[in-house]
């Protein structure tokens, strides 16, 4: 065989190998398979009947969501399901679209976001009592062809954040205090914030605030823009790790209740629940039962501040809570 023939055969072999590699690597991450059989009380038991069911767990595109996605998927994996993940989908519109199209089996959504973004409720219409809110979102979801599983203990809300030094300088402690000053202040938020009533729209319509500018940036940068002095104000989350870690940042009190808090409910379809059996909803409930606001902040901190991987953080928590070995 001449040189050229050898070379080209080699190339074909490499092509085959690399297509295989890419096919494996490019797919959505499979969570590492858990040990399966556990027998400690309270732990998630692996049920062999579940192994024939494939679930795809999705999440939106910021830390808390990704951690929740990992928690649910690892819990379900421990229960014996075959689990894929498609985390970091995007905003709520994209996640809901993926759910409806069947690309994912379910994802965690904030009750407040679902009610205001999907079901067109005003901020005042979002009940502050978590049980009432859950009932409302359940009914709405049913009409939407979706099912909302019972909520987490913790709730989170959008908040107007700024540097503590800036807050002192402007002498503001509530959002209403911004009146008269907001036209000189720049606001940064996620791209979808522009169109959400529990975000920029609400601030503009309900608080009547006009800002000097609104700049959309990736959610991950919400504190960076404050640090760098680009943003006077930034939309942050009440469960953010950065708020607890130091006194550097402050959030303004939402005195008019325009930025409602929402517990997290796992949105899925009835058909999936039927197919997956009782362990599906039970595992999800088990995984989230210990997620108080302190715990969620700690988990968020481990990813955002300690820079650990969400999957590792999730499994550490599940082990510490005695849910998996």
């Amino acid at each position, binding site marked *: 065989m001449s040189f050229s023939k050898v070379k080209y055969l080699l190339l074909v072999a490499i092509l085959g190998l690399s297509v295989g*590699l890419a096919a494996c690597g490019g797919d959505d991450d499979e969570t590492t398979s858990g040990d399966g059989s556990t027998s400690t009380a309270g732990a998630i038991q692996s049920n062999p009947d579940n192994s024939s069911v494939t679930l795809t767990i999705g999440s939106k595109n910021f830390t808390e969501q990704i951690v929740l996605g990992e928690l649910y998927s690892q819990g379900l994996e421990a229960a014996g399901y075959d689990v894929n993940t498609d985390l970091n989908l995007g905003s709520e519109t994209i996640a809901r679209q993926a759910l409806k199209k069947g690309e994912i089996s379910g994802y965690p959504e904030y009750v407040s976001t679902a009610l205001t973004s999907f079901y067109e409720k005003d901020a005042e219409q979002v009940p502050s009592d978590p049980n009432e809110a859950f009932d409302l979102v359940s009914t709405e979801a049913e009409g939407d062809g979706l099912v909302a599983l019972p909520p987490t203990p913790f709730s989170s809300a959008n908040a107007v954040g700024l540097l503590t030094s800036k807050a002192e300088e402007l002498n503001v402690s509530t959002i209403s205090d911004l009146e008269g000053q907001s036209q000189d202040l720049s606001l940064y938020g996620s791209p979808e914030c522009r169109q959400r009533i529990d975000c920029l729209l609400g601030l503009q319509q309900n608080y009547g605030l006009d800002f000097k500018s609104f700049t959309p940036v990736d959610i991950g940068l919400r504190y960076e823009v404050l640090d760098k002095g680009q943003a006077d104000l930034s939309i942050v989350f009440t469960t953010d790790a950065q708020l607890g870690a130091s006194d550097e940042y402050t959030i303004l009190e939402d005195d008019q209740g325009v930025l409602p808090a929402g517990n997290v409910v796992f949105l899925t379809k009835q058909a999936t629940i039927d197919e997956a059996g009782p362990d599906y909803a039970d595992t999800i409930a088990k995984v989230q039962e210990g997620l108080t606001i302190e715990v969620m902040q700690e988990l968020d901190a481990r990813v955002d501040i300690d820079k650990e991987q969400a999957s590792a953080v999730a499994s550490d928590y599940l082990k510490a809570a005695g849910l998996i070995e």
Partner: protein
Amino acid sequence: MPASDLLPLAEVSQDFFRDRSGGGCIQENRLFCPGWVVDNFDRYVDPTVQHLGLVVSAVVGGFLIAFLLAILAHRHRWLSSPFLAATGVLYTIPSISFFFLLLPITGRGALTAIIALTAFTLQIIFRNITNGLRNVPHEVTDAATGIGLTKRQLLWQVELPLALPEIIAGLRIATVSTVALATLAVFANGGGLGTEIVVGSNITFKTGIIVAGSIAVLMAIVFDALLLLAGRLIAPWTKVAR
């Protein structure tokens, strides 16, 4: 489904909560924290492997297609211009744009990313193969035809080997560019090192971005060197052209 009373909490002990008052390199998100890199290096393994897969698939695929086009254009000279123009358009279209142009057809995933990356390499490789073939001295081709080689033998046994340095040069450029571009594959949901740059809070994590970027640069350097070496091994009789 009625709202259930919250189940008894699966409590974690108090020492689950860490004390972050101490500060430190990672907490302050300083530019580069070597300690963290050493401890956490394994999180870059999967993205690197995916990245390798994307690059190799794209370059090999690009080479095969460009090679085919070049041979055709060598036989039928009038094809050169249209092929050059077509591959040129594919080269000009930004990859991220390409990902989403392909979205309705191939959806989100590694395949979309690979197709777009392959399209990018076509012009570089095609042009280099074509130039390499054209630069074979007339005396050599005349002599070869003179001793009775068929057109096909001429191509495979004389012209291509002599064009090798130029072809390798083209492959090197294509590969290095593809390694850099493949970081964008994350936008097509195709994985790769881009996931460690853009996903979640990675986008603010200076050390993480530096590590991911450095791995990409290193990968490019290694591929470049490997191809250079391969060129020297396969065709030691020719001087490597600039």
